[in-house]
């Protein structure tokens, strides 16, 4: 499997964010996207996720499941955590698992692996910032997509959470997955790097 972007150009709100951007990552590789605030890291991830239409160029995934599009094989972990405060932690997770098509049996297990099982029946409104992030990570695990698109995934996580997440990323890469992560902090795994400068 190989994820690559060629000659990408992104325009948002009438302003060019980046252009002529190239990148690629193969199975088992992580690509760390770094750069100053406003350089376009999030924009790039959203282009890869299919949530933004690039003004030029294209992103392709070779060697994935043929009948699925790239965005259907990717999971996007962004700043906004897609949790409904009125639903309980477990309800939130179960919904996304059913809707995005994860295995039905492992919701509890995914919660346990991010150390949230004790909170399974709390409303999501009661979670602390780090706990919300952990729940997002549980969702990432439960939907089992080969391509992970992570936007500052470790923000709000405590030290234990960061270690845990490093382990999870290792496992994912070990299983042949691909990771594209935008970050300001070292990820803790080996990565290829894509530095975005922001046009000067």
């Amino acid at each position, binding site marked *: 499997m190989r994820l690559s972007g060629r000659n990408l*150009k992104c*325009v948002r*709100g*009438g*302003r*060019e*964010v*980046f252009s002529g951007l190239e990148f690629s990552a193969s199975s088992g590789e992580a690509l760390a996207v770094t*750069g*100053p*605030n*406003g*350089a*376009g890291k999030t924009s790039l991830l959203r282009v890869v996720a299919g949530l933004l239409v690039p*003004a*030029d160029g294209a992103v392709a995934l070779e060697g994935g499941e043929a009948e699925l599009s790239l965005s259907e094989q990717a999971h996007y972990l962004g700043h906004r955590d897609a949790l409904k405060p009125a639903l309980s932690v477990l309800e939130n997770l179960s919904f996304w698992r059913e809707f995005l098509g994860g295995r039905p049996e492992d919701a509890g297990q995914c919660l346990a692996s991010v150390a949230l099982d004790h909170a399974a029946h709390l409303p999501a409104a009661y979670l602390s910032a780090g706990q919300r992030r952990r729940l997002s990570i549980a969702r990432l695990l439960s939907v089992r997509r080969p391509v992970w698109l992570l936007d500052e995934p470790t923000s709000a996580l405590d030290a234990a959470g960061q270690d845990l997440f490093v382990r999870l990323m290792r496992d994912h890469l070990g299983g042949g997955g691909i990771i594209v992560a935008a970050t300001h902090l070292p990820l803790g795994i080996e990565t290829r790097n894509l530095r975005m*400068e*922001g*046009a*000067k």
Partner: protein
Amino acid sequence: MTLTDLANPTRFLALTTRILPWLAGATTVLLAIGLYQSAMAPDDYQQGATVKIMFIHVPNAWLSMFVWGVMSVAALGTLVWRHPLADVAAKAAAPIGAAFTFLALVTGSLWGRPMWGTYWEWDARLTSVLILFLMYLGLIALWRSVEDPSRAARAAAILTLVGAINIPIIKFSVDWWNTLHQPASVFRMGGPTLDKAFLWPLLVMALAFSLLFITLHLAAMRNEILRRRVRSLQMMQASRVAFSSEVGAGSRDGHASNEIGAA
């Protein structure tokens, strides 16, 4: 000159500037002929002199629907082909269409008073035209209240296409429902039933008004292109300031390839 050539707004501007005077001239001449002919037209044996209102009512009514059709094509251009002039065409057409619709409504009611004894009646034809007018107003409101033109264009395109369903309803309302309004007498199966003495002035006036629309539309499109240029230049100017203060990150390039202003 093909459609792709026209995609270049600069070419389009040049072309517009060349043909606008001719169009305006032709419109004036045709309008003069049409007005003369309608003044000379005989009185109707039923309607008396009020039949003269027809010569302006019907062209305006036709155009009110035609303009929506133009906007629907432009909407497809925005959504499907992403043609850069489509947004401009759609936006420029809305106020003109609204004006024609307004005129159709008003001349219709002014005709309705002597003919039906009332200015307004909630029948299917009249109502559907009023809905058309409201939708024009909604579209104009949408264009005005969303600053980002490409965002507004996409929303407006979808709304235009959905609203296009109203057009056949207007056209056939007189056949589908029992209405006060009279059924089609020009564009109908089996040819026009209107007397020649009325048909000719009507057709000339219709042609004149269509030319008027084309002229106004091209001129309004030109304005819109210029407006977008101004916008993108202003954005560039703003980013100049940013360059000189040399802080921060991110692209300061004010250009957007899918915007007219950048062409």
